């Protein structure tokens, strides 16, 4: 085999289709993913640095960062706890309806975000089933940041469940049997034995849920109320600028969102890569 092909596969280099699959993949990634980014940079290049900073630090926009990040953080924490509970129950226990519960976990991914949006808004409005119960008790969910966090948590819960579930499944029974036979209580054994195994997956899943929440739009705008300075999310700010034909403003804010989400994605990927390598004895 020639020198050129020697790096294509590890053991044998007999499989065809390297050129074809490489061609399709690179063409597609360039055209669909990378080329459109140039439009954003072209638009940004028309702004001076001072103009750029003026747009991204404007009061209403900064308020939208706060609302988005704050609500996404709350949603991520809630999802970490709720997701861990669901993953645990689905892996460790047998009970009637378990298969249905398992299937239900993917609902937020399968359900279009706009459908989730109008449904949550209707449920939690004062006249809705949940809002009608909660508002007399003094909890206003719809048109507050709590509603935003709720919509974010709804759309991103599967990330945590589906990341933690397989790791819990792979945990051998001996691990916790050993801990229990040494007389540890449930709480101590979980914290000392289970948690060290699953926390990398838990962090990864929560991180992915957080990134998704930062960018979510359809599920949120209906329940958010969209009050400037109070319940406007950053994705909506971009949308508003676009409707005013302020392409430069929209691009500037979008560049902030894009930078944050791509940085987080890269961090999660590197983190996950390290964790996988550690588990597989440095082979990765």
């Amino acid at each position: 085999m020639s020198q050129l092909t020697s790096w294509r596969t590890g053991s044998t280099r007999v499989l065809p289709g390297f050129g074809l699959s490489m061609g399709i993949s690179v063409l597609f990634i360039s055209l669909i993913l990378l080329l459109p980014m140039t439009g954003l940079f072209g638009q940004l290049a028309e702004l001076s640095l001072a103009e750029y900073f003026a747009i991204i630090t404007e009061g209403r926009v900064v308020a939208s960062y706060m609302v988005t990040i704050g609500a996404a953080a709350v949603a991520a924490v809630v999802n970490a706890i709720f997701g861990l509970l669901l993953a645990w129950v689905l892996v460790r226990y047998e009970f009637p309806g378990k298969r249905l519960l398992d299937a239900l976990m993917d609902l937020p991914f399968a359900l279009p975000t706009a459908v989730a949006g109008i449904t949550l808004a209707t449920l939690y409005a004062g006249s809705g089933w949940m809002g009608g119960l909660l508002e007399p008790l003094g909890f206003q969910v719809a048109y507050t940041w709590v509603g935003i966090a709720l919509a974010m948590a709804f759309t991103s819960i599967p990330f945590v469940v589906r990341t933690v579930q397989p790791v819990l499944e792979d945990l051998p029974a001996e691990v916790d049997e050993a801990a229990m036979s040494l007389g540890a209580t449930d709480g101590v054994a979980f914290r000392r034995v289970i948690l060290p195994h699953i926390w990398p997956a838990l962090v990864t899943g929560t991180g992915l849920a957080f990134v998704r929440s930062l960018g979510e739009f359809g599920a949120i705008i209906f329940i958010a109320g969209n009050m400037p300075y109070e319940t406007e999310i950053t994705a909506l700010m971009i949308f508003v600028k676009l409707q005013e034909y302020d392409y430069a403003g929209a691009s500037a804010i979008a560049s902030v969102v894009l930078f944050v989400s791509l940085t987080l994605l890269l961090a999660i990927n590197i983190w996950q890569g390290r964790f996988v390598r550690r588990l597989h004895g440095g082979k990765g």
Partner: protein
Amino acid sequence: MRRIGDAPVVRRLLIGAALLLSALFLLLPLVAIFAQAFSQGVMVFWTNVSDTFTLHAIGLTLMIALLTIPVCLVFGVALAWLVTRFSFPGRRVLQTLIDIPFAVSPVVAGLIYLLLYGRNGWIGTWLDGYDIQLMFAWPGILMVTIFVTCPFVARELIPLMQAQGSREEEAAVTLGASGWTTFRRVTLPNIRWALLYGVILTNARAVGEFGAVSVVSGAIRGQTNTLPLHLEQLYQDYNAVGAFACAALLAFIALLTLAAKAGLEWRASRREAFA
């Protein structure tokens, strides 16, 4: 031997909490969609669904999904083949790049397409000279839909093809099978269920995409309104029952997606049990 959390009290408490929270958080919204859609009876639901604009939105949505799926399929298979069957410099970079659409906000995705292909973008200006308009027309909707859905097939195939390894294919090729025959007779039977699930996920997202599509569509009733955009307009017009009729159609597709996933998983676990 007793395992952690096996005590009956703990067990019941945790299962109870999980069921209660899931019912409130996930099941209740699902029930509410159908309750709202049918709140004024089946006839009103039917009137809403058979409305001219709704039918047009359904048609456009299905067309976009049907055009998106083959593109994502070819790309997904090619990328999965590339990163699982060959090792080359930049393999990890490709695998990270493919996750970009998951991390990018749909609104930002729509925006970058609008900037490039819209009236002010350099490709858009050039195409305008030939009187071709991609944005605020169905080709724009198709383009952003492909952007947001392109990772699904690849993401389903890569872990599976990695786990299966390439021994069977290598054997086939060594015995003289052509590349295409190897793919069709050896690879395809091994990956067909993952492929199918990838297509189902692609379809679910293509049908339901909202943020990216709402930026590039222009939302012209009877022209560039997809079903999610149409339901938004109905909802803003205080026609909640009409909006939920559209929502029920989309939720039905979501339920089919979940059923298909459960079915495919059941199949896989049964095969594992017999193996």
